[in-house]
């Protein structure tokens, strides 16, 4: 038997209580504190550092803590050329991140292999990890990376049943 009860609360706390769906709340918390795992491999890492510095402040978006530990981060920003030699290590780091996790492929090399159509460069990091947002540029401006972060935040906000979702790695 299902009863429809009015939600009642002490009117003294009116204004301090917010009604929302669980998904919205969890997604809001997650999107506003995406801690990056900076996989800074090459030149894009410099622009990543610039995005983290004062002028383009990535901390405004909640990515205050650039955790170099995969266990403590949410989003892996692959910034730079992924060589085949590095690919296995990158995959291992990705697997050590805890769910939920996302990946931003920053720059041409991480997205598609960039200008390096060669024997030593992995043609896009999406061959080994699932990528959520690609950023074009060589290197992309810090503003472009922030735009990607905002798009990722939009994606996180739209995730349905956040607490129950199984992510396929």
């Amino acid at each position: 038997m299902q009863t429809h009860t009015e939600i009642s609360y002490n009117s003294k706390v009116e204004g301090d209580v917010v009604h929302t769906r669980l998904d919205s709340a969890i997604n809001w918390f997650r999107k506003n504190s995406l801690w990056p795992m900076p996989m800074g491999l090459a030149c894009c890492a410099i622009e990543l550092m610039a995005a983290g510095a004062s002028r383009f402040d990535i901390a405004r978006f909640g990515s205050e803590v650039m955790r170099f530990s995969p266990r403590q981060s949410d989003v892996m920003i692959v910034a730079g050329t992924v060589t085949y030699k590095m690919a296995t290590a990158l995959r291992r780091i990705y697997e050590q991140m805890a769910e939920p996790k996302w990946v931003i492929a920053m720059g041409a090399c991480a997205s598609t292999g960039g200008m390096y159509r060669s024997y030593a460069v992995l043609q896009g990091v999406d061959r080994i990890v699932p990528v959520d947002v690609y950023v074009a540029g060589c290197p992309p401006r810090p503003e472009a990376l922030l735009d990607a972060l905002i798009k990722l935040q939009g994606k996180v906000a739209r995730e349905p049943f956040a607490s129950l979702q199984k992510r396929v790695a």
Partner: protein
Amino acid sequence: MPTRELAQQLKTRFGDLISDPAEFRGEITVTLADANSIAEVCAHAKKEMGFDYLVDVSSVDNYGNDPRWTVVYHLYGYGHHCHLRLKTDVSEEVSELPTVTGVWRTADWHEREIYDMMGIRFRGHPDLRRILMWEGYPYFPLRKDFPLAGKPTVLPEIAFTFSAPLDGGPFVTIAGGKDSTAREPRVRVPESDDVELTARLERRQDIKDVHGHSHGPGTVKKK
């Protein structure tokens, strides 16, 4: 110019082993006739003639010509500020020459890179193993017969490679086209490209370096 004198000194000391110094655009090059005495010559250059800095060791693949390898040493002296280039030829059957790590320790990693990319071994090297690619990678990538796109390989738990998609590349410009569309067409396959074949045949005759070695591959047969 002191470099020329230093090169002359080297020639007087080693005689027929060293060629006459050749000059090109202000740089002096000498060729060593026998690769096996490279360590001796370099030791003399360092201790007696003050070339105490090895700038670079690199190699050239004279694909189609014999001897296949040319190993090039760039020497410099902080005292006399002179640069000297030393070249030796190594044939493919031997593919080996003595190391100069006993003379300059920096040659260690340079020679490892040459081994990794070309397959030329160095006798007496303290630790000759791959430096850029991984142990167990089966090819030597900078040889002229190795494709730019690479070949698929798999070494479980260590690394893998795929062949990169080149889409009608390598995107080699045709020199001398009248505008950029002619010079850089959208798709080209060099093996069947008439312009590229003609250009290659012509180029091979007149592009020879100071010591008469030609650059570029051997005879290209039109299909």
